[in-house]
């Protein structure tokens, strides 16, 4: 009885505002409220609201046999609450069906796993608390930012308490093996779920490509491809950005009609059903221990990390912002801590990527900045100002040494919890 496992990634970063070397901001509010709000509302109208409504309808139509999972970042949740509360409500309604699983990740969609394991643990905990708070679930399956994965990250997630981890089904890691089985994290008992990138990308990237030989893609045709896995696998993992529906693939491409017919077409074959990630790992046993010899992600053809740290600007910016961790945390200032963490979101480094910005192919590249160099300049200007703020805080703290200032009490689990709200 093989399963189709849907997992959708929902993420919105806090984009930083225009900031020059000469600027200094009171209350260290570096984020562009207007732009973030308008993007959030736009994507809500085009994707989140109509797709959530469609999924709810499909779950009801199929009496709960259609099941999906989401990973929603903390930065997205905060923005839904502030700018589009109806989106949050619609996710809550999906959660209430009992057919939707929520997956754990870093609250700030960060690369902390690669730079600070302490910070990584803290952000994963914050995220878990947020999911509990909004949806009444405790995530048992973990996905790291952009499916960035190696053995160490799998083991870390296991240590934190997750029972399964999601990663990309990378060819050079899988070799002759199939992504359509459950594996275990190397030297660990945590299960590993691997994305079937071929079938996932047929929907996420190729769906509306008129130059594609399979265009147009129908639910019937796609289900036929899935059914061919029968006898050759336990699960087909379809992992993609949620914005695929209505935002990357516009409504006019027919993506919603495709989604509408897909569950029925998949389940026309009596062997096939839908399952969420935790249901998959509970139902199917792992076939082998899978060792990853390199860091992988779900990005680009290379499935590597060059989109976030492929040039010296990105490395510099990442090194600088993580170098502030000790100082930020020593101040016990929740506001500054939250600002710093918002600056860790991977999107800021993605905007500095130069590799696609070559050979005049400028327009294929989405970023709020004119160029990767602009993104870098802007980010470093913010960081310089933030560092000045931290230094002010540090010198105030050293003056207060000995006496307990109100501002700098010991960190408690309560303050951490506040942060996630």
């Amino acid at each position, binding site marked *: 009885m093989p399963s189709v496992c849907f997992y959708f990634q929902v993420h919105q970063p806090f984009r930083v505002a225009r900031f020059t*070397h000469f600027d200094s901001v009171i209350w260290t509010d570096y984020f562009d409220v207007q732009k973030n709000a308008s993007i959030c509302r736009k994507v809500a109208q085009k994707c989140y609201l109509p797709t959530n409504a469609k999924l709810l309808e499909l779950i009801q139509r199929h009496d709960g046999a259609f099941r999906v999972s989401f990973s929603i970042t903390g930065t997205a949740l905060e923005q839904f609450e502030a700018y589009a509360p109806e989106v949050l409500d619609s996710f809550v309604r999906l959660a209430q069906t009992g057919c939707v699983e929520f997956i754990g990740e870093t609250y700030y969609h960060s690369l902390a796993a690669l730079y600070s394991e302490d910070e990584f643990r803290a952000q994963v905990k914050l995220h878990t608390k947020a999911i509990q708070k909004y949806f009444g679930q405790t995530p048992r399956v973990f996905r790291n930012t952009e499916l960035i994965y190696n053995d160490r990250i799998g083991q870390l997630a296991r240590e934190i308490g997750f029972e399964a981890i999601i990663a990309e089904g990378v060819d050079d890691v899988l070799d002759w093996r199939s992504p359509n089985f459950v594996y275990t994290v190397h030297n660990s008992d945590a299960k590993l779920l691997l994305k079937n990138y071929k079938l996932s990308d047929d929907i996420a990237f190729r769906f509306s490509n008129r130059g594609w030989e399979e265009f147009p893609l129908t639910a019937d045709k796609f289900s036929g491809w899935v059914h061919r896995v029968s006898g050759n696998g336990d699960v087909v993992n379809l992992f993609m950005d949620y914005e695929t529906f209505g935002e990357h693939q516009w409504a006019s491409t027919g993506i919603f009609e495709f989604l509408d017919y897909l569950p029925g077409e998949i389940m026309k074959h009596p062997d096939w059903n839908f399952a969420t990630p935790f249901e998959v790992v509970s139902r199917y046993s792992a076939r082998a221990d899978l060792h990853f010899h390199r860091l992988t992600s779900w990005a680009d053809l290379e499935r590597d990390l060059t989109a976030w740290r492929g040039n010296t600007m990105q490395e510099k910016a990442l090194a600088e912002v993580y170098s502030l961790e000790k100082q930020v945390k020593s101040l016990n200032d929740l506001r500054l801590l939250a600002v710093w963490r918002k600056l860790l979101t991977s999107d800021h480094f993605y905007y500095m990527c130069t590799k696609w910005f070559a*050979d005049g192919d400028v327009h294929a590249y989405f970023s709020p900045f004119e160029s990767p*160099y*602009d993104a870098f300049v802007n980010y470093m*200007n913010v960081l310089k100002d933030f560092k000045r703020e931290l230094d002010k805080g540090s010198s105030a703290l050293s003056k207060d040494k000995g006496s307990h200032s109100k501002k700098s009490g010991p960190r408690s689990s309560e303050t951490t919890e506040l942060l996630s709200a």
Partner: protein
Amino acid sequence: MLGWEYPPHISGGLGTACEGLTRGLARQGVEVLFMVPRVFGDEDSSHMTLIDPLRHSVKRRKGAGPSSDSQSRVTIEQLFSEAELQEIFIPAFLQPYWSEKEYSRQLQLLRESSTIESLPLELSSHRFLSSSALQYGSDIFEEVNRYAAVVSRTARYLDFDLVHAHDWMTFLAGTLVSRQSGKPLVVHIHSLEYDRSGQAGNRRIHDLEKLGIVSADAVIAVSHYTKGIIRREHGIPAEKISVVHNGIYPSEAVQHYRDSSPDRRKRVLFLGRVTFQKGPDYFVEAAAKVIPHVPEVEFVLAGTGDMLPRLKSRVYELGIERHFSFPGFLKGEEVERAFSTADLYVMPSVSEPFGIAALEAISFDTPALISRQTGVSEVLGHTLKFDFWDIDRLADLIINALQYDELRQDMIQMARRELKRLRWDAAAEKTLAVYEMIIHRNERRI
């Protein structure tokens, strides 16, 4: 092809562009006969036939027998044997971008030191010569007319498929040659009077531009920016104008200019004419904002022009003279050295048809900050851009580019790749497409 200057005897970007374009065209199999007011003999023009319409013929008449190593040579030999040309010296000091005042002064100097033989021009048969453009004397227009006269006469003995004229100084000549030969005319706009002088431009130059643009079968503009101005200033349809961006050949890395000592000051370069169009004043004002934040920095303002004295006193007024140097007009190796030793090149132009210097800077591994009011900003992605008037942004970009080696390193690494795309071959290819289009159109007409 009709040009006004050719390297190394150049006053601006025009000659460099002509060299690059003709080399690219030669590689595409185009045979180029290039006429300039004066050939000095030290030009590197092995890829084409460089013709001084008068002096060459004089030399040949006295000298060697016929050589026949190429088709073009044969043609030239025919010309030399048939031509009955007088020895006339065309003053070669013409600087098309001199102000009229400067030109008159130079002309006066010349008159005092030598003689210009008056030209027995048989031009009255040409309709155009009765137009206003020919009625001015004793200035650059007189030289434009002389050039037109000798070129059109020489061209009678040449075999060619079309006429390609570069900038207004050669448009009269181009128009004459096209009319007398019945061959199509392409005019190539590297710079417009409007760019150099704004609305206050010289009416006569404007008229000569218009003559060429209206007479031409096709117009080539060095950027979309320039194309827009041509349409606006001369009111011709967009279909007639093709855009061919200039290119550049990456020069050999000029490592030996580099001073690798770690404690040397960071250097920011302006290189160009110190005139309103080039925005050197924005460079100075931005520098004043940078210096308090980057104490160890040197701003190099290279070039000459009418704004230089005023800018020097402005630098003193701002009290930043310790951070400034004014090396004057640079040429040849000095230019290479300036580009190679700069950490950053800034092009704050108010209005720049193309701005080939930005590509030159990159070819010397120096990243460029360029104003959005340049043609080159349309083709260069791997750079930081600003509006020329936005001094705060320019200062911000300079500070960060000096502060972060990583920024400069990534910019230059990617820009070098981009430069390949901008090479002259691409420009030549597009030019050839324009040629083919109008030649076919002409054939259909016949």
